[in-house]
């Protein structure tokens, strides 16, 4: 009996990510969920600009590559073209979703578009070599904040889940991470719910995954997982920020 193997919705090709980059774990979780829900044939993924730009070579379902930050707009078109059949997800980094693509994500959420968004928050621009992201922490040293992020100069890091939770629109918002086995299990549960919500016609579901970029954080992969606990989570608390259906059940 097979206890653990690569999911079928992930192609049997090597990933280009750096050693210990948790993009790979998150890809696997999305693929496991696609397998478990049996939706590979009707799923269309929208890849971002960022390190995950090549996600279209990794997922076995159909994939489209969107212009930087525009994945929610592309996803909206794909979903609306055949809402009963198509299952649509975007996979976006923080440079993609929380900077150049802020307008697209806010309005997709406000419209309660029936799509699933996997948002990878690694507090940095990975692909371009480690520049400060809107999500970089106060004091965080990056290529463009060599003395640490100074809020007087650069403002404060953007909290996407908290921000979108203020909107009427979205159905489900949760922040998770993948820095330990229990957290990987919780992340998978959230991702599965975000896809299930779409199948149930409930609307916009976003899972923010706090992810490690050991290369641009300048840490070993193991240290990067610890830094998520010590530095990322205190500013980006894990948990459910909105779950409309669950709340209305309670209200009944």
């Amino acid at each position, binding site marked *: 009996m097979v206890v653990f193997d690569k999911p079928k919705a992930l192609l049997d090709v090597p*990933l280009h990510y750096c*050693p210990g980059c948790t993009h790979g774990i998150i890809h696997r979780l999305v693929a496991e969920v696609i397998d478990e829900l049996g939706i590979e044939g009707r799923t269309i993924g929208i890849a971002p600009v960022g390190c995950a730009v090549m996600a279209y070579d990794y997922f076995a379902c159909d994939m489209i590559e969107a212009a930087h930050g525009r994945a929610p707009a592309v996803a909206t078109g794909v979903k609306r073209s055949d809402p009963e059949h198509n299952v649509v997800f975007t996979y976006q980094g923080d440079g993609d979703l929380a900077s150049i693509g802020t307008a697209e994500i806010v309005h997709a959420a406000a419209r309660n578009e029936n799509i699933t968004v996997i948002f990878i928050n690694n507090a940095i621009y990975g692909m371009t070599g480690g520049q400060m992201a809107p999500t970089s922490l106060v004091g965080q040293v990056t290529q463009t904040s060599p003395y640490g992020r100074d809020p007087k100069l650069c403002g404060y890091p953007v909290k996407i889940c908290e921000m979108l939770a203020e909107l009427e629109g979205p159905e489900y918002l949760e922040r998770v991470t993948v820095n330990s086995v229990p957290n990987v299990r919780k992340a998978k549960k959230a991702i599965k719910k975000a896809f299930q919500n779409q199948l149930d016609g409930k609307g916009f579901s976003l899972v923010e995954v706090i992810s490690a970029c050991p290369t641009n954080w300048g840490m070993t*992969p193991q240290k990067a997982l610890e830094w998520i606990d010590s530095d990322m989570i205190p500013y980006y608390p894990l948990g459910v920020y909105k779950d409309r259906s669950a709340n209305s059940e309670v209200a009944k």
Partner: protein
Amino acid sequence: MIKISFKIDTCKGCGLCVGACPKKLLRIAPDAINKKGHHPAEITDASACIGCASCAMMCPDCVIRIEKE
């Protein structure tokens, strides 16, 4: 019986599996080098493996496959 296998040439030697194993059975092979030039992960005592799959769950590259016989 638990059968654990590693796709050696896909491994990047990141060591996340090493940190995840509750039985401390894994290590980055000090002497072996794979096709990519990485020191791959290996199991020191396969008979002590309990098949919990913690290592596989933390592997970003789906290197580890676990079977129960």
